[in-house]
């Protein structure tokens, strides 16, 4: 096979504010044979997107390609003029960006945007292009392929938008498509559909592609070749099977280890049945409170949960399931419309303005995005000192000492206290974010997706830190995440939310093997495994056609449930069933039935050698 694209000795530099040139990537050499998929993998800042963009001879503002050659067939892109490059981009090479939501123009119909590149390059008539687009929509498994193009971007879901963006890239039949983290912003349940659609077109049309990702498990499904990047240099490259089964480089091994959090980290819950936080019948939402006491846009309904002293409760669900709303309602930032939140023996008022300073102190929230949760105008020391002064009335000297202790607790050097928080890395910011919550000396910390924005290696370190803090200080956590592997690693109890309702509750052990609630089953089975051919084996996970039922008392998951009972599930609300294994689910099916249905999709042990059906995986 001949190589479609060949990169030689590529070096890209950036010019900083101080006029110093800084090398972002160097010594990059690889080639992709026609019809193969190459994955660029690495943490954020490793230069993977920079390299991907360089394949179009494009460098972001402030950067430029310093040396090296990029051959497409036999043309060196570095020798082309700007007009020649323009006619190449979008026609022979196209790009699928990470966030489809921000890549579409919200005021244009989707079809017009998809056809743009055919019109720029005059490659075909509008009619032919439209027919081709509809064809692509069909291949990409989009619903209503004939009409979806006439919608606006906000009228389709995130996963659909990502596929539409792929259609946009493919409309000109490019020889090379660059996928830049196309599924990172999606829920696992959506990701699996998108991956499947991508894989199918890539195989059917023999497309050569570059797949940029930080997720080894996803890459294992998509790529033939893997290039592992670290700090702008290639640290290992090879066939996918070789990289995931027998990595030789230390950094690759570290990445692999981070992809498999150890499940046995948590100290078994001390048999202390006293619950610290108990929530009964909690409901919350946004908008005006209507006359019947429900908000205009209800989000959470009838949530019951309890957290024991020194234990961790995990909350899982897709985006929009109400996880963050739950944290806000417990913290009182969003007044609940019904229900009781009890901390130890005290009932907490539903809005934080009515809570006493002591009550506020005992429940702290750590927000998802440390970039926005730390005031960029303040230094680390000032951020940490404020809760000390506010809750504990500490003087300057005492708080300086305590700040150093806190920094030590989260494994940061004391010298960092004088730095503005904008100078810190993502992981350091999240540690400061955590330290601020600890400064209050709370009983309970609500962690809202604290690891989602971080690289796997950094996220693992943060999770270890949480466990350590729990062991040493006996703090209870409510840990919100969309990632079931993370939850199984740190939580004692887990509840599953779907569309604002709790559908399952159980201990960590209950989430290792069936029976699960059908939704939990879908979640667990949608998490990609680090094993080639996994995607092909998961053929049975399909989105189900919505059922024709409306009414709020029914099971919220009804529309997507693959095992629903017609005539029962769309008529009655599901009961709470205690399963013999200890967890509780809200479902019409019994534990035995669930177990039988889910047995065939049982988690196989990971890190198995590539199975026979994995060719080309």
């Amino acid at each position, binding site marked *: 096979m001949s190589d479609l694209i060949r990169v030689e000795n590529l070096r890209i530099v950036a010019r900083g504010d101080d*006029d110093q040139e800084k090398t972002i990537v160097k010594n990059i050499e690889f080639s992709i044979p026609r019809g193969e998929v190459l994955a660029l993998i690495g943490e954020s800042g490793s230069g993977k997107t920079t390299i991907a963009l360089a394949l179009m001879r494009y460098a972001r503002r402030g950067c430029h390609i310093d040396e090296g050659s990029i051959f497409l067939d036999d043309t060196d892109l570095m020798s082309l003029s700007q007009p020649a490059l323009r006619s190449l981009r979008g026609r022979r090479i196209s790009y699928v960006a990470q966030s489809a939501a921000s890549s579409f123009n919200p005021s244009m119909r989707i079809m017009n945007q998809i056809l743009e590149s055919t019109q720029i390059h005059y490659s075909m008539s509008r009619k032919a292009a439209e027919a081709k687009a509809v064809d692509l929509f069909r291949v990409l498994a989009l619903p209503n392929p004939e009409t979806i193009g006439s919608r606006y971007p906000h009228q389709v879901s995130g996963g659909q938008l990502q596929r539409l963006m792929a259609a946009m890239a493919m409309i000109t039949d490019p020889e090379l498509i660059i996928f830049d983290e196309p599924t990172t912003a999606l829920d696992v349940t959506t990701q699996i559909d998108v991956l499947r659609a991508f894989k199918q077109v890539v195989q059917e049309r023999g497309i050569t592609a570059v797949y940029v990702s930080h997720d080894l498990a996803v890459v294992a499904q998509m790529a033939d070749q893997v290039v592992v990047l670290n700090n702008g240099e290639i640290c290992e490259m090879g066939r996918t099977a070789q990289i995931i089964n027998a990595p030789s480089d230390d950094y690759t091994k570290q990445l692999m280890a981070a992809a498999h959090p150890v499940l046995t980290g948590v100290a078994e819950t001390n048999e202390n049945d006293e619950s610290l936080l108990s929530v009964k019948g909690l409901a919350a939402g946004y908008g005006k409170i209507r006359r019947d006491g429900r908000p205009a846009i209800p989000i959470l309904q009838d949530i019951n949960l309890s957290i024991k002293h020194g234990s961790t409760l995990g909350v899982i669900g897709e985006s929009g399931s109400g996880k963050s709303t739950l944290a806000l309602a417990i913290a*009182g930032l969003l007044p609940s419309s019904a229900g009781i939140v009890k901390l130890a023996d005290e009932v907490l008022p539903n809005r934080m303005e009515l809570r006493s300073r002591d009550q*506020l102190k005992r429940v*702290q929230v750590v927000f998802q995005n440390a970039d926005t*949760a730390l*005031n960029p105008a303040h230094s680390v020391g000032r951020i940490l000192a404020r809760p000390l002064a506010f809750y504990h009335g500490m003087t300057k000297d005492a708080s300086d000492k305590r700040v150093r202790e806190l920094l030590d607790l989260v494994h940061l050097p004391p010298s960092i206290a004088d730095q503005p928080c904008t100078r810190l890395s993502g992981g350091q910011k999240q540690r400061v974010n955590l330290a601020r919550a600890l400064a209050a000396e709370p009983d309970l910390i609500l962690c809202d997706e604290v690891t989602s924005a971080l690289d796997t290696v950094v996220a693992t370190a943060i999770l270890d830190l949480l466990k350590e803090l729990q062991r040493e200080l006996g703090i209870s956590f409510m840990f919100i995440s969309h990632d079931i592997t993370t939850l199984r690693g740190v939580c004692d109890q887990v509840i599953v939310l779907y569309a604002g309702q709790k559908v399952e509750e159980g201990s960590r052990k209950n989430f290792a093997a069936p029976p699960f609630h059908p939704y939990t089953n879908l979640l667990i089975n949608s998490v990609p495994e680090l094993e080639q051919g996994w995607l092909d084996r998961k053929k049975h996970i399909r989105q189900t056609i919505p059922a024709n039922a409306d009414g709020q008392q029914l099971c919220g998951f009804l529309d997507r449930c693959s095992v629903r009972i017609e005539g029962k599930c769309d008529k009655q609300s599901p009961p709470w069933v205690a399963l013999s294994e200890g967890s509780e689910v809200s479902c019409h099916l019994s534990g035995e039935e669930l177990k039988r249905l889910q047995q065939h999709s049982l988690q196989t042990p990971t890190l198995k050698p590539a199975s026979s059906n994995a060719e080309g995986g």
Partner: protein
Amino acid sequence: MKSLYRYLGITGLAGLALTLFWVLVSFVGPLIAPYSPGEIVNYDVFLPMSWEHLLGTDYLGRSVLSRVMDGARFTVGLAFAAALLASLLGTGLGLFSAVSGKALDESISRVMDALLSIPNKIFALVMIAALGSSIPILLLITAITYTPGVFRIARSLAVNINQMDYIQVARARGEGRIYLASVEVLPNMIHPMLTDFGLRFVYVVLLLSSLSFLGLGVQPPNADLGSLVRENMSGLWEGAPAIMAPAAAIISLTIGVNLFIDSLRSSR
């Protein structure tokens, strides 16, 4: 110097130089002026430029150079004070409005909208007609005229910052409104507000100059740049530097500040 050049660019540097020049003139101008601004130095009026009178003489035979140097003091000083007052008032109200409850926020905003809807020159004319023209009145009127504009910008900035997670964290901690406004929100809006101050300053210069041009601004025997243009109007037909010089002064001051502020904005 090189880094300053990188930061501001060539236009920004030119703007900075012009701005600094006028600030310097307004401070030391009266000290180094060749004549006293009121002194009649020649019996010929509207003389052209010469070594004796660098910018010629005005309609009474006074030294134009000395009068421009003296006038710049009024224009720059008054405009600076008025713009500062408007910025402080507008930022303070905007911040207060953003962290207050809905009712208070609405009422402050609507009052500001009402003020904003009055054309500023008409407003100034009416106020001066009613109260007479003096330096404090001019200062107050220009400040009031430009406060609503500052308020709008400050409030929208503060409302945006108020949505940030770090404000939520502080609110969850139980912090009061004053702490939120002054410690958490304010430091993050200082930079854009400074930029806004510079632009406001330019508007104020133009408003004060036009008021003076109408004869309602700084009153004789004092004169700011606007009044200098007005009193030498009749020299226009002779092309006398007496009218060109103060006009050029206003132009270079406003363009200079504008260029400087613009380069600050784009370099961020």
